[in-house]
């Protein structure tokens, strides 16, 4: 057996898997999105753009997703950056690994259970009950955009901290010393050295969080209570409740297309910025 043949054989099972469980389903979704709905749900072969033209019927879901996902990403970034800065540049190395693991652990534990915790806290007997005692009556927190944003920050914070931490940790600390020696105040060193050097990490973190948020279902389902819904919730509804598969397929294709477009634009912008800052990154 030649090495080439061995390689092909080693690759074969994964190749079959990716073809049948990823490529085939994505093609089927694309085909379905141009088809027609059967009498009792399901699919009848056809070629029509009706479902795409009908997308505005689910505009609200796209609108919610495209406003709450960017807002959520920015809030996550603002909360994560100082923590990543602290972990990379301030805390003693002795504690660094442990503190870092403590940030990552929640990300790998069930998001279902973690969102459930917030139903508990934001629900009628949680914070609103405490506010009640303080005289602020009738405040509703659960099933509001605020609750969904809290869930988003809670769920995605670890994913943002990690890439920013990595880019800050790589920063050559002698640059900061040199800057201080030359009489630059700390805030100036931060704006001119630390912040630009950490931008790749910020970009990676924002993209990861944003992409995952676009396809989010659980957090709005648990904390938005049907009032604040994302495209993911519309999809579940279309597939399992109204059983309109071709329309659901069109919504799914539209979601992926919107994701691809935003990510492409984002990458372009980042690249553009990066080029403008060559002088800084070469320092």
């Amino acid at each position: 057996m030649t090495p080439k043949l061995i390689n092909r054989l080693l690759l074969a099972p994964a190749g079959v898997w990716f073809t049948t469980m990823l490529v085939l389903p994505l093609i089927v979704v694309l085909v379905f999105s141009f088809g027609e709905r059967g009498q009792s749900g399901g699919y009848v072969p056809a070629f029509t753009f009706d479902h795409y033209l009908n997308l505005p019927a689910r505009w609200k879901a796209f609108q919610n997703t495209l406003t709450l996902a960017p807002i959520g990403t920015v809030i996550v970034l603002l909360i994560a950056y100082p923590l990543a800065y602290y972990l990379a540049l301030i805390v003693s190395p002795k504690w660094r690994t442990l503190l870092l693991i403590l940030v990552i652990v929640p990300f790998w534990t069930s998001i279902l259970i973690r969102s459930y915790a917030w139903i508990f806290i934001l629900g009628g007997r949680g914070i609103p009950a405490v506010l009640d005692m303080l005289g602020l009556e009738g405040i509703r927190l659960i099933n509001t955009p605020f609750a969904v944003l809290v869930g988003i920050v809670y769920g995605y914070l670890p994913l943002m901290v990690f890439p920013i931490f990595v880019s800050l940790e790589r920063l050559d600390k002698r640059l900061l010393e040199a800057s201080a020696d030359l009489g630059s105040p700390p805030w100036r060193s931060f704006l001119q050295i630390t912040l630009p050097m950490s931008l790749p990490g910020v970009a990676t973190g924002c993209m990861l969080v944003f992409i995952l948020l676009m396809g989010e279902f659980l957090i709005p389902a648990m904390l938005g209570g049907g009032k604040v819904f994302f495209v993911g919730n519309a999809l579940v509804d279309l597939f399992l409740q109204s059983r309109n598969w071709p329309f659901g397929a069109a919504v799914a294709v539209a979601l992926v297309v919107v994701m691809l477009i935003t990510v492409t634009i984002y990458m372009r912008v980042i690249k553009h910025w990066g080029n403008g800052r060559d002088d800084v990154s070469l320092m």
Partner: protein
Amino acid sequence: MRIYSLAVYLFLYIPIGIIALFSFSAGRNASEFTGFSVKWYGAALSNPFVIDALKTSFSVALSSAILAAVFGTMAALALQGMSGRIKVAFDALIYIAVMIPGIVIGISTLIAIVTVFGWLNPVLTAIWPGGGPAPQLSMGLGTLIAAHSLFNMALVIIIVRARISGMDRSFTEASADLYATPFGTFRQITLPLILPGILAGFLLSFTFSFDDFIIAFFVAGSNTTLPIYVFSSIRRGVTPEINAIGTMVLALSLILLVTAQAFLQRGRKT
């Protein structure tokens, strides 16, 4: 800075802590703490629906993690020595598998499987020899394991490839110079070096599969996994039993994660 970080850690851990705390409450009411008790753990573990869901989740997670670890490692080894079109295509597929939202994977797998089984079942009936009704393909554990293995395989390939590229080439070269067979080199040099990566990939795969709700929601057929059970119970209201199940699930994930982390750390040192 320090106080700020402490506040963020509190934000991350207080909700988990509250669930764990209330799981030990004796009262019927989920959000009032009335005396210490482990009775809700007993209630959860003697609920046949919970046990059933737990068994389903465990066997799906174990099977898909094993499949992913074996086939993913094989693919990572093959891709290391490859270039050209197949490698480019594979890299793209791994990227897509990780990036496409779980919900899109879930629904596309659902409609693809329903469609393909819809074609295959009449064929099975037609070619089935002898008496008795022909077996029919349907959604179930098999389809769920296959769907979870996809994401997990991508995960294992990424982790193992990172280990392979961090590996010192001179070991394998020395082994070949000393007339070891390619398989001998693999068994005695490569495998021990990448094993921590494989084990970490296996444990992360298990955790992903065990915690996944959205793909299972579409692909599990009539089977109920633990996250599906928890989700539908929450819809019916918050109960102390859910707190107990949640605490157990969190504890299990925590143990698996710490083990995976230990493997990755040890791998880095050697």
